[in-house]
C-alpha cells in the first residue's frame, strides 16, 4: 500500500481501518505518525465541548421584539387579564381616571375654608369614584380582574395586585383623615398623592398590558 492510498483510507474510515492499512501505518513512520497525531487531536477535541446551556433571556426578548416588529408573530389571544386592560385603555375609562385625578388637583388648588365644603370635596371625590365604580362595565371589569389576578402566578400581576391593595387602603385612610380634619393641608396633600399613585399604577398596568412585558 502506498502512502496516498493509506491517507484516503484513513480519511474515509478513521481508526477503524482495514488490516492492510493498519499494517502500513506500522511500517511507515510518516503515515503512522500522522494517524497517531490525528487520533490524538480528535480525542482532545471532545474536551472542548461545552455543556449546552440556555441562551440568556435577552436573546428571546430581542427576538420576540424583532418578530413583532416584522409582523411575523401576532399578538397572543387575550387572556382575561389582558382583556381587562384592553377595556381599561378605552378612552372613556381613561377619561374617568383623569377626572378623578383632576378632582384631586382641585382639592389642592382650591382648598375650601368650611368643614362642609371640605366634606363636600371629599364626598365629591368619593362620589366621582363611586359613580365610576358603579358603572356596570367597571363591576364586570373588577370581577374579571380579581379572577384573573387571583389565578395568575405572574410576578408582575402579583406586584400590581399588591400595590393596588396598598393604594386603595391608603386612599381610604386619607379620605377618613380629611373628613376628620377638613382644614388639615397635609391630609389633603396625602389624599391627592394617593389618587395620583393609583392613577400612575393603573397607567403602569396599562403599559404592562400594552407591551406584554
Amino acid at each position, binding site marked *: 500500500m502506498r502512502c496516498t492510498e493509506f491517507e484516503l483510507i484513513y480519511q474515509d474510515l478513521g481508526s477503524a481501518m482495514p488490516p492492510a492499512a493498519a499494517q502500513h501505518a506500522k511500517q*511507515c513512520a510518516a503515515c503512522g505518525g500522522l494517524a497517531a497525531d490525528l487520533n490524538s*487531536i480528535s480525542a482532545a477535541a471532545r474536551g472542548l465541548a461545552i455543556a449546552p446551556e*440556555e*441562551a440568556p433571556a*435577552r436573546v428571546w426578548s430581542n427576538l*420576540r421584539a424583532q*418578530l413583532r416588529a416584522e409582523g411575523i408573530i401576532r399578538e397572543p389571544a387575550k387572556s382575561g387579564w389582558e382583556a381587562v386592560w384592553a377595556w381599561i385603555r378605552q378612552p372613556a375609562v381613561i377619561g374617568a381616571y383623569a377626572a378623578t385625578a383632576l378632582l384631586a388637583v382641585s382639592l389642592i388648588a382650591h382648598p375650601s375654608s368650611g368643614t362642609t365644603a371640605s366634606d363636600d370635596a371629599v364626598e365629591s371625590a368619593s362620589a366621582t369614584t363611586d359613580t365610576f365604580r358603579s358603572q356596570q362595565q367597571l363591576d364586570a371589569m373588577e370581577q374579571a380582574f380579581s379572577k384573573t389576578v387571583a389565578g395568575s402566578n405572574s410576578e408582575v400581576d402579583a406586584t400590581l395586585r399588591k400595590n393596588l391593595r396598598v393604594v386603595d387602603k391608603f386612599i381610604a385612610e386619607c379620605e377618613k383623615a380629611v373628613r376628620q380634619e377638613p382644614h388639615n393641608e397635609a391630609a389633603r396633600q396625602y389624599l391627592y398623592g394617593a389618587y395620583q399613585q393609583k392613577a400612575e399604577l393603573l397607567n403602569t398596568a396599562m403599559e404592562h398590558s400594552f407591551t406584554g412585558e
Partner: protein
Amino acid sequence: MARTRQADTGGLNEAEAIRRAQQGDEYAFEFLYRMHNRRVYALCLRMVGRTAEAEDLTQEAFLQLFRKIGTFRGESAFSTWLHRLSVNVVLMRLRKKQVAESSLEETTEPDEESGGPRRDFGSADPLLTGSVDRINLQRAVEQLPPGYRAVFELHDVQGYEHNEIAEIMGCSIGNSKSQLHKARTRLRELLHEQERDKAREARQAAKEVEQES
C-alpha cells in the same frame, strides 16, 4: 415527514408547534425557541468564542428560521433545518471576519476550495509531543478556515455523524469526511508551529539567562 418530539410543556409537540408558528402564534415560536436554543447557542458559542457574539448569532439564526417557517414542509427534520441555518449564519460571520482580516494582512491559510493543507505523502513529520493540550488545541481551532472549523466542531467537538453534517452543511458525506481530515491535518500543522514557537522561545530565554550569567 418532520420528526416530532414530545416536549415537556403543555403537551404541545414540535409538529404542532411548527404548524401553529406557521400561523404566527407567538407561543409556538417561543416553544420552538425553548426547545432548540441550547444547541444553537452552544454551537455559536463554540464557533465564535464570545458570549455577546454567540447571542447575536443565536438570535439571527432563529430570526432567519422564523422568517422562513412558512416554507417548512417537513422534508427534513426541523432540527437539521435549524442547524443548517445556524451553521450558515456562523460561517457567514466568520468568513466576513476573515475577509476583513485578510485585507489587512497576508493570510497563510490554505485554500479550502483547492484542497487545503498540503502534505508530501511519505515524508516524516515530527510527532506531536505527548497528549494534545486543550488550550493549544483551542488556539489552533480558532485559526482554522471557517469551513474546516465548522466540520471539525460538529464532528469532533459536538459529536455529530458525517451523515448529519452532510445534511446540515448541504454537502456529501464524502465531502464532510474530506473536510474533517483536512481540518485535523491543518490543526496538526498549527500545533507543530506552536511547539516550534515554544521551543524557540525556550532557547531564546536560555540564551538570555546564559548571557546574563
